[in-house]
C-alpha cells in the first residue's frame, strides 16, 4: 500500500517537533527559522500548565475542534488529551476549490500525555473548551492546598 514517507502525524515527527520546541525555549527564538518570518509552526497543540493555591490548570491551544471529539482520560497521574480536526472539511462540500496559496495549519489527529504533579484529586477534573483553548482544571487534595497561617501577637 502506498503511504507517504513524510507525515507530520507520525510519532517520529512529533518527537522532532517537541525537540524543536525545547530548543526554542533554550535559544528563546525559532531555532529552524532564524528570520522569524515563517508562521509559528505548531503541528501539535502547545500546552501551558500553571497552578493556584487550590488547583492545577492546564491550557491546550487547539483551535477549530469540535468539543465532542475531545477525548480526555486520567489514569494514575497521567492526563491524556486526544482530538483532531480535518481542515479540508472546513470549506464545506459545495465549495469549488481551484487551488491553494498556503497550507500551514495542522490537520489530523494528535495526542498529548501530561504527567500530573502529585497530590491532585483526580476525581474532580473539569474541562472547558472556549475560543480554541481547552482548559482542564484539577483540584488539589485538601492536605496539599496552600494554607495561610496567621501570626498571633502575644
Amino acid at each position, binding site marked *: 500500500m502506498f503511504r507517504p514517507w513524510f507525515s507530520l502525524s507520525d510519532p517520529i515527527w512529533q518527537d522532532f517537533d517537541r525537540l524543536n520546541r525545547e530548543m526554542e525555549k533554550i535559544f528563546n527564538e525559532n531555532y529552524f527559522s532564524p528570520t522569524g518570518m515563517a*508562521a509559528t509552526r505548531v503541528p501539535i497543540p502547545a500546552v501551558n500548565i*500553571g497552578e493556584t493555591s487550590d488547583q492545577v490548570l492546564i*491550557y491546550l491551544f487547539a483551535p477549530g475542534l469540535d468539543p465532542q471529539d475531545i477525548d480526555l482520560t486520567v489514569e494514575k497521574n497521567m492526563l491524556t488529551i486526544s482530538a483532531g480536526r480535518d481542515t479540508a472539511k472546513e*470549506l464545506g462540500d459545495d465549495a469549488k476549490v*481551484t*487551488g491553494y496559496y498556503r497550507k500551514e495549519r495542522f490537520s489530523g489527529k494528535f495526542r498529548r500525555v501530561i504527567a500530573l504533579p502529585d497530590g491532585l484529586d483526580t476525581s474532580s477534573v473539569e474541562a472547558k473548551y472556549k475560543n480554541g483553548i481547552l482548559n482542564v482544571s484539577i483540584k488539589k487534595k485538601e492536605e496539599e492546598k496552600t494554607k495561610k497561617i496567621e501570626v498571633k501577637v502575644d
Partner: protein
Amino acid sequence: MADVKGQEMAVKTEDRSPQEQQRRRPVVVTPPVDIYELEDGVVLFADMPGVPKENLDVQIDKNVLTIKGEIGDIVPKEITPIYVEFNGKAYERAFTLGPDVDVSKIEATMNAGVLKIFLPKSEEVKPKKIEVKVE
C-alpha cells in the same frame, strides 16, 4: 520539566504600570494560515486560539489585509506557571491582496479560535460562461 521561574505564563494579563507594560511588549505570534482559491473568491483560515470575537481586528488598507487579535483573559490572576510552551499574547499577520478582490464585500467570522475570511472576486474577473451558439 524546564525551569520556568521568572518566565511569564503566556496568557496572563496583570495589572501593571504603563512603564512596565511598555517594557514588556506583548509577544506577537504569526498565526498559521490556510488560503484557498475558490471559483468566486479566496478563503483564508487563521489559527488564533484564545482570541474572543471582540479582540479581533481585521483591516484593509489599500491592498493590504491585516489581521490582529489579542488573547483574552483566560487565566486567574493568582496563577503560577509550572510549564510553558506557548507564550504569545497576540497574533498579527498581513497579506497583500491581488487587484481582483472586491474589498467592499469581505466577510469575516470567528469560531473556536479559527478566523475565517472570505474575499470575493470582483464581478469582472469571475469566470464567465460563454455559451456557444450553434447555427
